[in-house]
């Protein structure tokens, strides 16, 4: 069977891979590109462990065919930190003990990233609904939701701080 050639951007890098026409983008990222941060927890779009951001939209890529990624810009958990500097969400998850086994964590971080980009100051309820597509069986969600809210407030105060600095200049 002939393989499909796909060119896309993954975490800012132009990336090419060959895939089968029926292969999921999740399998292609994991098996062809070698990024195993996104996990398969169900294969049916119900658990969110494979959540990444495709062209700005939070997507369960177990339900997306790999050839559909042609030309797309994909952001995965591997691209969340800036070098050694963790993203505020990553830092807050660590400091807030928002993970136990950690297998759902990449998906939650991407879902939370998508939430804060859309809504930088979410309420607890908005956060819970935004994360409702991601299953965590360990934490009971308490520390995850708290960590997202803390990250949001840190990011906002940092942004306000930056704005103030700019104004002062």
């Amino acid at each position, binding site marked *: 069977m002939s393989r499909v050639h796909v060119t896309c951007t993954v975490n800012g890098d132009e990336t090419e891979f060959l895939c089968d026409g029926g292969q999921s983008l999740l399998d292609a990222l994991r098996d062809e590109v070698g990024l195993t941060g996104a996990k398969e927890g169900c294969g049916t779009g119900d658990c969110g462990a494979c959540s990444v951001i495709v062209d700005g939209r939070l997507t369960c890529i177990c339900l997306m065919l790999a050839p559909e990624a042609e030309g797309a810009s994909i952001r995965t958990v591997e691209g969340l930190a800036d070098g050694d500097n963790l993203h505020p969400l990553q830092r807050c998850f660590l400091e*807030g003990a928002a993970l136990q086994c950690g297998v759902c964590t990449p998906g939650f971080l991407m879902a939370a990233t998508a939430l804060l980009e859309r809504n930088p100051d979410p309420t607890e309820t908005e956060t819970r609904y935004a*994360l409702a*597509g991601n299953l965590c069986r360990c934490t009971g969600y308490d520390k995850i939701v708290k960590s997202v809210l803390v990250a949001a407030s840190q990011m906002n105060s940092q942004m306000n701080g930056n704005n103030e600095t700019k104004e002062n200049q």
Partner: protein
Amino acid sequence: MTVTESRPQYKFVGTRPVRHDGVDKVTGRARFGADLDLPGQLVGQVVRSPHAHARIISIDTAVAEAMPGVKAVITGEDFPPVEPGVGDYDMCVNLMARDRVLYEGHALAAVAANTAEQARAAAAAVEVHYELLPPVLTIDEALDPDSPVIHSHLFTSGVDPAPAEPSNVSGVTVFTRGDTAAGFVEADVIIERELTTQPVHQGYIEPHAVVADTDPHGRCTLWCSSQGHFNVRAQTAAMLGWETARIKVIPAEIGGGFGGKTTIYLEPLAAELSARAGRPVKMVMTRAEVFRATGPAPGTKVRVKLGASHDGTLVAGKAWMAYSTGAFGGVAALLGAWTVFESYDIANFEVEAHNVVLNTPRSAAYRAPSAPMSAFATETVLDELARALGIDPIELRLRNAVTQGALTTMGAPFDRIGFVECLEAIRDHPNYTAPLGENQGRGVAAGYWFNIGESSSATVNLNEDGTATVVTGSPDIGGSRASMALMAAEELGIDVYDITPVVGDTEAVGFTDITEGSRATFATGMAVVEACRQIVTDLRGRAAKMMGIDVSEVDWVDGRAVHSGGEHDPLPLAAITANAKRTGGPITATGSLEARGVGPSFAVHLCDVEVDPDTGVVRVVRYTAAQDAGTAIHPSYVEGQIQGGATQGIGWALNEEYVYNGDGVMENPGFLDYRVPVASDVPMIDAVIVEVPNPAHPYGVRGVGETSIVPPLATMANAVAAATGRRILDLPMSPMRVLDAIVNGTGNGDGSVTTAR
């Protein structure tokens, strides 16, 4: 919030450092079971039964073997023969059916091929001829003498005289104390209820996965996620008939287990396929396979009868229990019988618990196995007793709670325990008296579990620069690396981040039992402490040499060797390790032990629910959970265990259940139809850590992983009863069932239906 009995103030224990494996887990670097690939790797696929019960007439693998890319096909015949009821028969036959398939999803063959697609195609081409047999699907069916007997070799154990005929009851456990009949005669109020629960799955997000690489000499390396890699090695060796030393198991990060990964499913199949193909084989379950062939927790039918005097003193108890352990027997009934009355000081009781075999997946441990269902029954009846007696439900429990010296069900006295402290913590919590809104109700319930001991090993190596590596054999499911590092830091007196906690493979560390029974921080922690204390003894001796004094004059204080006479400057640990070559060589020690001392742990949960009278939907408004942790080594992860267990219990109470059609085919093997709680289903869970140190542990640890799932079933049911005036005795309390109770008056009312003498 933490309620602490007086205990020593520690420098590291009880603090909240970022866990050592944390960065890997927030950056996608952590390698879980399915994240490893080897060069030349094949993909394995299991062939599973579509029938709940059938005789295998024949399996024809010829077509599959000839298909493109197929490198190996195996069936039950390719494993050493097993004898019914002997040794590891249940495990071996569960992993690969022999003459019969015993549940839908039962493995009966496996293939390995170049690609997943080829493996799936070949699995579909394995031709199996079945003779269908009638399935036994419910506890009532299994106990009916006219029903088929699933295993002709299964004679009920634990009854005297031994039965002459086989049955679907694999074992009976009986506990008695005092004179139960006389006790009930003394009672002023007696309430008896029959309650049922359905099988539920552990629901770990990571499906089972393994990579096996068997070399031409027959040595096999397995990479897999499990709760205990030494157990994976033992079970794999047992099924293959291999010597243990042929197998090395390297633990991957584990994506949740909750008891469901204390046993194996794929490893011997992958090892055998790899041996035949001469190439590594990777096998990963789909979610549907996880539901159909692994876990679940047993379904139950439990009758509990309690008698109390007017002042609330429990005078007699009687329990009849049945746990469905799926296609094979188990220990579920024993654990149910043990826990059903364990929390209360009752002078007279009789407990009889049955393990019932069905044509459903073999049940596996699930967090405090058997206790949530037994507590559901006892704590529901207690709630009704409290109403009937007009006594506050916490007060009723306080009047009967076990305390130090009270007898356990097994007959030994309790050591220092914190049940009363947990009850008081909830009674004194503002949520216990918070105002309730319309259609809202409040429930409270308690739960008991314990940590077990078992074997643990730990090796501590000091590095030249004064840092330390702590190697244990306990897979880290929820932060145990951090707790090991905290205890080691406390012992050695060096910073917690100067310690690298490592989970060693089966050839890198001494034998260690499974991470189960809330034992990792307790028992493996004891091994770490023991190794560290050996190291400190060694360090004092070396410091004495360096100072030229007797070792008796050297104390170990805050990571430094201190001369008690004060004439010599203290030597920090790093100064001693830097001189190790001149004082006796590498500084290393191993602690290995069989941990003693069951650490009883109690929890009390409090919940407010709001029930929509039009839809029957139950919304959790507030949830508060108090639990005795002994000493919380890392309070954040103790809270996490409490919150996670509570939420699993909420799912069990409200939504989760295996649904079978009449043929025994599971109808909801996916997270869409098997609905576990999501973030929008639950509020913040207010975790109250109670610390009544466990006398059996150097830091007072009690296992914290499991107790939190014990109270929620009854807590939720009691809250729903309070909100609706209807007592629902069958879980889950799905909207349909709740609505039925509200509209049609099913259930047993609000406690008014009591039997008084």
